[in-house]
């Protein structure tokens, strides 16, 4: 029904929005390769010299290592708790099922500062010193929903007859889980884990309130930008973080279809969501 003109206008609009979305990202990646130590456009000379400098910076290294540890722990916790929640919600119909989905998405839908201040108050209340573990607790809380969404979406696509057949053939619950359910869930688990990792690795708002004196990589970046120090290194680190967060998304999109990546409960609440064609 769209006229030719409408189509042209829409096309221009879409290209405009895509440029809006990607020009900033491209700009920052370009600056990572700038030779200069000030952020002035246009870039006069290109160089990769800031990469080794950032890599050998002791502060960056310590922060990177802390971020990796925090993200790994948070991912592990959200894998267990997120898939447990998905199993429970999927298998059993009960009053308030939808409420659980809503509850789990709250830490992502409400401003992170609320989670941050709430956790800080609680740690202060309980006399818990801020450490790696308080960072992990904060991250896991908002990462759980990511795994939950992915696993639940997959469970809804797996036919119940598959597990029933397994039981009929004499497998017990554990065997069915290990030999039938787990292989069908594996890609959903992997993409959920990758996304949880990406989310945790980059998080700065909640972490501001749950990290003690130590810096995660995003906290180091935030601090450096505020002070206007070491900006060439910031360009490099930020490009690296962009990559670390984009690669899991690309992999997850391949494994489970881009629909699992919406962050809200899109595609999981609707039971009859049309299947995203698998990546070619």
């Amino acid at each position, binding site marked *: *029904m*769209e006229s030719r003109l409408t189509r042209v206008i*829409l*096309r221009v*609009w*879409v290209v405009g929005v895509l440029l*809006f*979305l990607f*020009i*900033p*990202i491209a*700009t*920052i990646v370009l600056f990572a390769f700038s030779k200069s130590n000030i*952020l002035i*456009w246009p870039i006069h000379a290109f160089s990769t010299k800031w990469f080794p400098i950032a890599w050998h910076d002791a502060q960056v290294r310590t922060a990177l290592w802390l971020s990796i540890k925090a993200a790994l722990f948070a991912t592990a916790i959200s894998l267990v708790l997120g898939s*447990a*929640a998905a*199993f*429970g919600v999927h*298998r*059993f119909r009960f009053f308030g099922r939808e409420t*659980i989905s809503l*509850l789990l998405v709250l830490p992502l*839908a*409400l*401003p992170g*500062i*609320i*989670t941050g*201040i*709430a956790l800080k*108050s*609680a740690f*202060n*209340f309980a006399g818990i010193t801020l450490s790696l573990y308080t960072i992990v607790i904060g991250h*896991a*809380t908002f990462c759980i929903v990511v795994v939950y969404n992915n696993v639940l979406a997959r469970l809804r696509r797996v036919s119940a007859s598959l597990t029933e057949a397994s*039981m009929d053939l004499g497998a*017990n619950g*554990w065997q069915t889980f290990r030999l039938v359910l787990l292989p069908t869930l594996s890609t959903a688990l992997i993409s959920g884990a990758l996304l949880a990792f990406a989310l945790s690795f*980059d998080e*700065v*708002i909640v972490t*501001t309130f749950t990290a003690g004196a130590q810096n995660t990589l*995003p906290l180091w970046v*935030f601090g450096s*930008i505020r002070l206007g120090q070491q900006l060439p290194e*910031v360009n490099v680190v*930020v490009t690296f*973080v*962009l990559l*670390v*967060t984009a690669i899991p998304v690309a992999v997850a*999109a391949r494994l489970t279809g*881009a629909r699992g*990546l*919406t962050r*809200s409960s*899109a595609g999981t*609440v609707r039971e009859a969501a049309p299947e995203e064609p698998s990546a070619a």
Partner: protein
Amino acid sequence: MAVTSALGRSETGTTRVSAALWRRGWARAVLTLSPPLLWFLVVYFASLVAMLITALWSVNPFTNNLVHSWTFSNFREIFTGTYLTIIGRTLGMAAIVTVTDAVLALPFAYFMTRVASPRTRKLLFTLVVLPLWASYLARVYAWIVILQNGGTLNWTFQHLGLGSPNIGYSNVAMWIVFSYIWLPFMILPVYGALERIPDSYIEASGDLGARNLRTLFRVVLPLAFPGVVAGSIFTFSLTLGDFITPLLIGGSSSNFIGNVIYSNIGLANNLPFAAALAFVPIVIMIIYLTIARFLGAFEAF
């Protein structure tokens, strides 16, 4: 004595437990649901309660120690002129950002559903989702580089002979950056809503004599509206509490709820007041979600 099963294996304690669990759906539901729910109860909700209690405490102005006696002074202070202005400014920003994103998202999502080929649609979907996950901090920082005085935007405008816009470190800059950061959150639910409009609705509208524009305003947009509301939950809510963008992109005088909370933790070291102020976005979002539910946003997720 172990019972031999059909497969010739003996049934051990664990198999019996797993079989019993399999038969009793509720037992499994309780077993699988209680760890995550316990986590949320102990970590998230207990923390919110701790935040409420903290908000009712105060800080001794001389020693900077927490005073553990009940007072509503923090909440009373929020209702004074300074803070009401800040809350109003933040709400205004959240509203403008939400409208901007809706305007940007609607034609985009419409193109995805009704013009693009399935292949293009899938590509566009991925291109929208990618910035959603790509480092938040990196994307905010990119705009400093673009908007500052020696930045890309000024340079481009100068070379086009349009003068320098010089919008770095201002509320305009914040408006652009917020709209940019949350845009994918709007496009996805709007796309979800548009995708579910059957072609037959639009054909029927045409058959009944409606012109394209009329079909757009009377059929497509009303059906897309729940998607816009669903997206607005994110654009609105996330703008309310963000402190990174006001601190890095905003000017020296741009106080928003988020960075005022932040400065109460850092410099002022007044956790009770920060906690009280953190209830402002919560209350606003409870009101907002109630309205959104009424407008049908939850079906659009």
